Every structure is written in C-alpha cells, then in structure tokens.
C-alpha cells in the first residue's frame, strides 16, 4: 500500500561560501491519511528544515540536494514552482511557531483567510468569507462575524494562533505541518491550543507532522514519532513504545531529561554536551562524543538505520541489536 506522504532519503544542503553544508542527511519516513507524527530532537537537529523541505520552501542558500518527497504519487521535490504552489496551503499547510509574527500586520484577518482560498479555488469573496467564518467558529473564536474585519494586533497571542490554525485548515488540507505551534504561547494556553489542534485533525481526518521539543506533548497527540539528531533520524516507531521504552541512547537521554520522569528533588538529567553545528559533525555516529555507550566502532563507522522489532521500530545505533526473532539481515 502506498502512503499519503513518503519521504525517501531526503537530503538538504546550505550553499555557503565555505562550501555546501549538509543539514538533512538522508532521512526517510512516511505518513498515512489522518496519521499524526511527532518530529522531536534538540535545537539544530534539522526539524524545521525538514518541515520546509516537504513543501519545498527552504530559505535562501538551502536546497534539496537529494531524495524524494512523494505526495499522492508525485515527487514534490521535482515539481515546477506553479505546481508546488498549488500544493502549498492547499494540500499541505503549515503552522509556524510565533503567531505574533505569522500574520501580516497590515491586512485584515478576513483578507488573509479569503486570499488563501482564492489562491487555490475559483471562488467569490462572499463565498470565501462564509468558509472563513465557519473555520473561525471551528477554532472557537468568539463572534467571528466581527472579527473578519479586524487586524492581527487586535488579537491576543492565543487568539492569533487559533486564526493561524483556521487559515491552515481553510482549504481542508490532507496534511498540516505544525512547527512548535505552542512554544511561543503563554504556558496557560499551550495545552488549550494543542488540544484544539489535535481534536481538529482527528475530526477532519487530517494528517499532522508535529515538530516540537516537548516529548510530553508528542506522546499525548501523536501515534508515531521520529527522533532527529544532527540531520538524521536516529529512532522512530510508535510513540508510546518509543517514549516508554527508548532504545537509542539519544532518545533515552531525552526521556531522562523530561521533568515528569524525575523523582522529587532529583537533579535534571540534561544530556551532557551540545548538538554539533553543521561544520563539525563528528565522523561515525554523530552522537558519539555525548554517548555513554560509545565504543570504538561508533567513532569510525556510521550506524545503519534498521528495523529492530516487529512494531515498525527503527534505530540507528551499533549497540542496539535487532530482536532475535527478526531473523538475519
């Protein structure tokens, strides 16, 4: 069976003066209709770049240097600009981190909603406004009729993110990519917005790629997860399996660092060291300078990303052996 979205061996580089730097180094995953996936990892892992690569919208010196992004049977990485425009915001929408910066300050909410529909459908303004109203109701904006004529600065941060969600949903897309949609919000409303997003994706059967640092949110919202480190996926699988039984030392480190997993009074278990920058990714396993299990082979040889059990778990680590029942590979 073919998937709704299939990312195969995707590679993204940034063309800089010192030469091309690899930001995404051959990642693969897929998403089915209505499926929700979390993309986690520390800052600089390449989560946002992956999100933008899917809709072929990487900022300036960046470009897709290899691999394929198959959506509904066509390779997005090879589409013409106009054909790609038809996908963006129509079949695949994005939600950004900071709702204070996402909306254009000089255009009304109504305009910013209507134009999205008009970019993809032959539709009159009144028809588009009717759809906009319906979506504003879905994201629980009070008295939406009055709101259409207002400008972004007349809304609070939480309200603005609801509007951004409404814009993302306005074309009934198959997939929404949400890049840390609650990080910039007040803690008290983070859960509210996340619940709303989850509930809307469920009721509309919309696929979700949720990019976040927050493993707690991922385990609440998503069915599967991919953990990224230095431009690669190092572990993926069903969310509750991975969170409850992490196999890769990096995932284990992330889970241990979760405040919820701590005994009262215990110290916060940050993984020592830092994510390498693109210019000094170590040879072998990129995680080796920070890994408690590191052996010689880890410094010389890149671990392959292989299935390790019958439940779609995949791991890239020399020290994680496949389930014996999997047979030889």
């Amino acid at each position, binding site marked *: 069976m073919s998937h709704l979205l299939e990312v195969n061996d995707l590679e993204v580089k940034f063309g800089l003066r010192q030469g091309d730097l690899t930001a995404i180094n051959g990642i693969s995953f897929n998403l089915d209709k209505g499926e929700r996936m979390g993309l986690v990892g520390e800052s600089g892992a390449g989560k946002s770049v992956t999100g933008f690569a899917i*809709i072929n*919208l990487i*900022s300036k010196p960046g470009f897709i240097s290899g691999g394929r992004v198959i959506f509904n049977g066509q390779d997005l990485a090879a589409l013409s600009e106009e054909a790609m*425009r*038809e*996908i*963006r*915001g*129509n079949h695949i*929408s*994005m939600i*950004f981190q*900071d709702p204070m*910066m*996402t*909306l*254009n*300050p*000089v*255009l*009304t909410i109504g305009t910013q909603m209507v*134009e*999205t529909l008009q*970019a*993809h459908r032959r539709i009159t303004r009144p028809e588009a406004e009717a759809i906009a109203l319906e979506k504003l109701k879905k994201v629980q904006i009070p008295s939406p009729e009055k709101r259409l004529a207002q*400008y972004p*600065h007349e809304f609070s941060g939480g309200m603005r993110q609801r509007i*951004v969600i409404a*814009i993302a949903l306005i074309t009934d897309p198959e997939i929404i990519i949400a890049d840390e949609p609650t990080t910039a919000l007040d803690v008290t409303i983070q859960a509210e917005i996340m619940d709303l997003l989850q509930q809307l994706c469920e009721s509309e059967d919309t696929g979700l790629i949720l990019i976040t640092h927050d493993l707690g949110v991922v385990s609440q919202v998503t069915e599967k997860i991919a953990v990224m480190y230095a431009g690669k996926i190092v572990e993926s699988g069903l969310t509750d399996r991975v969170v409850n039984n992490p196999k890769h030392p990096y995932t284990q480190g992330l889970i241990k660092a979760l405040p919820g997993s701590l005994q009262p009074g215990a110290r916060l278990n940050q993984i020592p060291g830092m994510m390498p920058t693109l210019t000094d990714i170590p040879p072998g396993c990129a995680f080796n300078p920070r890994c408690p299990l590191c052996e010689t082979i880890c410094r010389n040889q890149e671990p392959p990303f292989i299935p390790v059990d019958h439940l779609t778990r995949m791991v890239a680590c020399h020290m994680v052996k496949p389930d014996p029942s999997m047979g030889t590979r």
Partner: protein
Amino acid sequence: MFAFVVRRITQALFVMLIISLVGFSIKNKIGDPIRDLVGERVTPAERELLRDKLGLNDPFVTQYLRFAKNAVQGDLGVSFFHKKPALAVIAAKAPATLELVFGAALIIIFISLPIGVFSAIYPRSAFSRFTMAFSTLGVSVPVFLTAIVLIYIFSVELNWLPSYGRGETVSLGGWDSGLFTVDGIMHLILPCFSLASIMLPLFIRLIRSEMMEVLETEYIKFAWAKGLHRKRIWFIHAFKNTLLPVITVFGVQIGIMFAFTILTETVFQWQGMGFMFLEAVERSDISLLVAYLMVVGAVFVVVNTVVDIIYGLVNPTIRIAGRK
C-alpha cells in the same frame, strides 16, 4: 484614528508656534521696519517717534502676539524692496517652486519605487547590482553638478530641452502654471530631474533595504506557505509593509527638498521662491526673508502632517504602537 489626527494637528500647531517665534526673533533683532517703511533719510528723532507709534518699544511678548495675530490673518509684513506685502510677493513666486517640487516628487516616486522593489526581489540581478553601484555614487554628487551636466547634455549638445526659465505658463486664478503647455513641461524636465536626483539614490536604497527586510519576515514566509501567487506576496503583502517607513521618510525629504530648490532655481534661473530668497538675502530684505521662513516652515509642517495621517491610514497598528 480621530484621536491620532487631532494629536498630529496639535503637534503641527506647536511646531508652527516655534517657527513663528524664531521668525519673529530674527525680525525683532535684525530687521529694521522703519527703514522698510520710510527708507534711510529720516532723522533719529523722527525714527524714535515712529518706533513708539508702531509699538516697536513694546515688550517682546506684546510684539510677538501682534506679529502672530497678523501672521494668522495672512499679514507677514511688507517687503522693503518690492514695496508690497511679503506674502503677496511670495504667493506670486510660490507656484513655480511648488510645481518644481511636485514634478521632482513624481519623478522620485515613479523611478525609485519600481527600481527599489525590483532590486529587492532580484538582489543578485545585474540590473540591481548596477543601480546599487550607481546610487552609491549618486548620493555624493552635488545638485548643481548634476544640473550642469544635464544642461550640457540635453540643452547644449543635443538641444532637446530648454535650460532656463519656466517657458510658457497659463494663469489659473492667479496661479501661473507651467503644467498645461508643452513648452512649460519641457522647461520643467531638467530642473525637476536635477532636484529629484538628490533624493533618488536615497529612496532607491531605502525602498530596496526595507523591502528586503520585509521579504525575510515570518509573515512573508507564511504567505508563501499558504500557496499565494508570488505577485500577491510581493505587491500586496511585502509592498504594503515596505511603504510604511518609506512614507515617513518621504514626508521629511519633501520638506528638505524646498531647501534644495534654492540651488536648483539659481542654476536654472527658475523664478520661484528659492530664487526670490537669494535676491532677498542680497538686498537684506528681512521682512521678506522671515516671511519666506514662515511659509516654507508652514509647507513643511503641512506636508509632514498630511504624510503622517496617510501613514496612519495605511498602518492599522498606529493607535497602539509607538513609532521609531
């Protein structure tokens, strides 16, 4: 919006108050209204009598209030040389200068906007690199040099355009306009381009850098992610946000352009306010100088206020956001 307009008009009135104080101080300290009235051949005793009669020995504040009251009623004193009310002298010269500034402003708008926007969208194109290099040079070329070069090329060598005077004008209720005859327009071209040339490089660079900054923002990235057509992203989403800071600078620079009309009008023998100003300096016609200061000050304030109100109309956040 209404409160904003009221606030801006109050500020404008305050600035006019300060300008009038400065104008009055100059008149009070340097001017000699007795000479303006009766000339040099009058005895000191008679002069003193006249001073008393005219209230020139009254306290400063009393005199200022009289000056301000007259100014509000359109009486800015009498030109010693022209033997006419200063305002009437200026009014006769104003259309020439206003049309010069108007033409230059149009040239600036219609040249800097397309070039600035294009070179922001395609910063690496050969055209963008060329205009950037050219405008870097352009900033440092003085206006009279531009004027002389233009005259040399288009008047002396090619003989396409006239190099001095206003040409044929049409009187429209006291306003002598050069905008309605071919000859008048031909005469406007070189002076307007010379005057515009001072501000053009600045505006091309300003529009380009503002637009490039806007194109990097999150809301533009979001507009791309929504799948909008690129024309809509460039010319609606980015352009509107680019205009906001540009409008403010434009208002200030138009005011400053009045100062540069003095040079331009001299080179082109353009019978406007700037030309008149230099003549008034040579003749020590203090009343006329002060009147010029007041009128140009008023034009500056009015232009800035109008521009700020336009800014307020374009920018929906004006009511809450402070401006840099």
